[in-house]
């Protein structure tokens, strides 16, 4: 990086530091080992963890009319928290910035239908997998296109930025030259993808099957094919937070053994996605 920009950055940082001297209350605390501890607050004796979620990712996590977090993962997290003796609060975040937010200590974990990938595993730890899903490809009912057409690169594809669907398409259709980079459209959230599929700006939408099914329910669309990417969901936790990882793994284990797990799977139409 050239020196001028560095200089500017330093000036900037100084200004920011000054302007923020009065604004920030909870700075991160240094642990004896020198690692930054998570941003948990201690209320009484109970630790409160902040869970980052995608606020627009049903059935795993979404925000309801009252502004409360809901969903399969949200309910799971609440159960685990009770089980493990801590409290949780939910923080909806932009999906493509959610890992940086975790790394920055803004949140303590991502529990929101996050697929375990190699790239992500370089930056964060994942809990044991708790769901396994395929990628689904949806088309308009009146579309002539088939799943084979999609795989052959004949479709303009819509995907949410940063999702496995987008990454799969990049790696298997764009990188192989089957479609041009222009033929993959990136959206902020999946409902926008569905909207644009309906608008016929794109031919196909790719997304995790359960969420995809949820998103196109009641719309003149259908899933015409699934891609077995072998992907599984896990809870993302900072590498240094091994204690929290242990708690979440133990909690997940207990949850999946409990009847509540089956209730949740039924409630959120995820039966068959559980690894157990």
């Amino acid at each position, binding site marked *: 990086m050239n020196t001028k920009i560095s200089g*500017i*950055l330093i*000036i*900037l*940082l100084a*200004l*920011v*530091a000054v*302007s*923020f001297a009065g*604004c*920030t209350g*909870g*700075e*991160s605390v240094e642990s004896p080992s020198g690692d*930054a501890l998570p*941003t948990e607050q201690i209320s009484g004796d109970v630790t409160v963890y902040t869970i980052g979620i995608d*606020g*627009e990712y*049903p059935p795993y996590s*979404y*925000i309801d*009319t*009252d*502004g409360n977090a809901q969903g399969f993962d949200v309910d799971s997290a609440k159960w685990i928290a009770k089980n493990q003796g801590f409290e949780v609060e939910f923080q*909806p*975040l*932009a999906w493509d*910035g959610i890992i*940086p937010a975790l*790394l*920055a*200590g*803004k949140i303590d974990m991502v529990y929101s239908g996050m697929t375990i990938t190699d790239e992500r595993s370089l930056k964060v730890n994942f809990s044991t997998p708790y769901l396994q899903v395929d990628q689904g490809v949806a088309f308009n009912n009146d579309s002539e296109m088939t799943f084979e057409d999609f795989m052959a690169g004949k479709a303009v594809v819509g995907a949410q930025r940063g999702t496995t669907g987008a990454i799969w398409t990049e790696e298997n259709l764009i990188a192989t030259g089957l479609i041009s980079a222009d033929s993959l459209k990136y959206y*902020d*959230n*999946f*409902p*926008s993808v*569905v*909207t644009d599929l309906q608008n016929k700006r794109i031919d196909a939408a790719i997304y995790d099957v359960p969420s995809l099914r949820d998103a196109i329910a009641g*719309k003149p669309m259908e899933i015409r094919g699934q891609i077995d990417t072998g992907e599984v969901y896990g809870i993302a936790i900072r590498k240094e937070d091994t204690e929290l990882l242990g708690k979440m793994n133990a909690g997940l284990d207990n949850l999946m053994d409990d009847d509540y797990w089956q209730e949740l799977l039924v409630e959120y139409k995820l039966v068959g996605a559980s690894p157990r």
Partner: protein
Amino acid sequence: MDVFSIVAEWLPYLLSGVMVTIGLVAAALIIGALLGLPMALGQVYGTRPLKMVIGTYVWFFRGLPVLLLLFLFYFTIFPFLNLDVPEFFVGATVLGLRGAAYQSQIFRGAIQSISEGQMTAARSLGMSRLTAIRSVIIPQAVRVALPGWSNEYPNILTDSAICYAIGVAELMTRTSQIVAQTYITMPIYLACALVFILLNYAGMRVIYHLEKRVAIPGFSGNTSSGVL
């Protein structure tokens, strides 16, 4: 359920974003003014290095898109500083620091428009440079700057919507969330636009009355300081 009742159902959720938006705008205007005025003074009366530092700051913040500034602070700068800053404060900081760059130029223009003679006259009365700036130049400059300053309100108000990109739960973010859940587009977008336009109108009314109150007939600079 028809469109209207769905929109009506979500309306409270949308409207609760108003306070967040107002908070962003207010924080940004205040940070902007608190930093902008000293920066303007520094640019007019400061030493060469100080002028350069401020000039660079202004160049930086005026040269970058709000969207990029938000990303830069949210993903790069704050994490680098190891600061845990909630989205709202990231938004307020970016809008405020950026506003300071713009406001400093408004104030600078105003200070420069106050004639040299005012300074000379003040000094000839035995005032120190600092006293002259504080009690003669600033009270006049702030009033000269008011019309330009009041333009900052609508600008920051509309820019605050870009905080959607980092997920601050203001109006635009909520609008997008509602659209994502209901698949109803136009009525919700238009409702959001209406709220913004009303906020704009209401804010301009407030500023208009504020301007009236601080304006002094005959415009003499020797009254006590009336910094906003």
